[in-house]
């Protein structure tokens, strides 16, 4: 009952806001922690993201429980001790591509872009900026980026016992392929 209503409203909202908003619910976000002792990586394939191709405004929502580690134990520790996903179930980013004008969404190509905005992670809001690319290929629009994230910036403390196993700075990768909201 509620679902179609919300969806209809969403479509309506999208229509009013802009016909140029594209989105996805299956964005891929992953991170690496590498230390001489141990490499850890986790993937989330259910990031929600959207982008207004006209203004360059963009947003991401990532559920912390959606990060998949190769070892169950790592995942448990991530959820309980580091991300505290019960307290902070999602992380968000909202920002803007400053040079959106240089991207031609109708022409195949890889366009370097600069993004800046606010990241909300583990209950801490921080301004961030990163370089990325918009890749246009046969009408498909893909956005990729790679940036570094210091866990201490987001009040994520790593106990002494595992300080040699977990890197202070994580390499975060983003790779999302948008589909038009209303085709």
């Amino acid at each position: 009952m509620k679902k179609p209503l919300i969806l209809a409203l969403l479509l309506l909202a999208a229509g009013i806001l802009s016909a140029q908003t594209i989105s996805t619910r299956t964005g891929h976000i992953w991170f690496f922690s590498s230390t001489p002792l141990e490499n850890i990586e986790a993937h989330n394939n259910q990031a929600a993201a959207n982008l207004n191709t006209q203004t360059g405004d963009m947003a991401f929502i990532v559920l912390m429980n959606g990060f998949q580690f190769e070892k169950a134990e790592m995942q448990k520790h991530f959820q309980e001790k580091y991300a505290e996903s019960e307290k902070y179930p999602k992380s968000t980013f909202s920002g803007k591509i400053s040079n959106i004008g240089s991207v031609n969404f109708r022409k195949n190509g890889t366009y370097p872009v600069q993004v800046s905005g606010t990241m909300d992670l583990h209950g801490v809001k921080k301004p961030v900026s990163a370089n990325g690319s918009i890749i246009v290929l046969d009408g498909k629009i893909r956005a990729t980026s790679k940036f570094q994230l210091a866990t201490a910036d987001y009040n994520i403390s790593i106990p002494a016992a595992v300080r040699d196993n977990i890197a202070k700075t994580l390499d975060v990768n983003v790779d999302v392929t948008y589909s038009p909201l209303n085709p």
Partner: protein
Amino acid sequence: MKRICVLLLCCLLGSRLSAQDDLLAMLDSLQETDQKREFTHSTFKTVRVVNAHSIEIPAPGVLQMAISHRFGRLNGGFYEFFGLDQANMRMGFEYGLNNHLCLGVGRSNVRKTYDGFVKLKLMRQSSGKVRMPFTIVALSGMGVNTLRWADPDRPNYFTSRLSYWHQLMIARKFNSRLSLQFMPTMVHRNLVATRREDNDVFALGAGGRYRLTGSMTLNAEYFFLLPTGSHTANNYQNSLSVGVDLETGGHVFQLMLTNSLGMTENLFVAETDGDWLQGDIHFGFNLMRVFTVSEQAHARAQKAEGW
């Protein structure tokens, strides 16, 4: 209903609000319509509260090794080095087959007991699309006492070596700090020492944990022997244990004080004879170590949960 109103307002005032926040709000509602069942994780740090099983089972594909020690009584004084001169130990392995089932075996020097058990998760606490207030786990175990027969000249039966235990664990993680577990328990001994002893022992157990920091929890458990007035309740003590869990990368160290010496249910539920008030307290620890045997099993289980 509220959300719809907010959305409506968003639509109407769309042009006046910041475009970025609108994008975020849109995403938010996109995800709400796609909400999944979220299972509660980390109700306890590991598979034991102290002596008793917790509702946790090893993750699918994970082998959990437990090395447990219970020393002698603290009131042994300096001569016994407060119990450290006597060490009783159990070595155990348990393996998580999937999100619901775990099998375990162990060997303890207390009565040279081999034990085996099955732990089955019947219901999992969850929020989101499906809400369940509790996790319920059933445990069935069996112990084989392998001491030499006290009197080899009389007829002795293998079945006399066996005891069984059955337990239902009902637990709830109230928040990231507090988890409580209720555990009605039954122990059956095929052979008891004297005619007056009960073959069947019943107990109501309760336990819990309080998380002090990310890596440290305070745990306690208590087994109340039933029915009052039975031989067991009159002649044995209720088992009371308190401990802390310390977690490092792949280990959990559980340090405890308990009035029970045995590390299997037939012993610590039915045959605890230490009295806390007399100082019959055993120091002990469980060293829990996980080995990831199959990463695929973990990946498969995650997929089954919709991730």
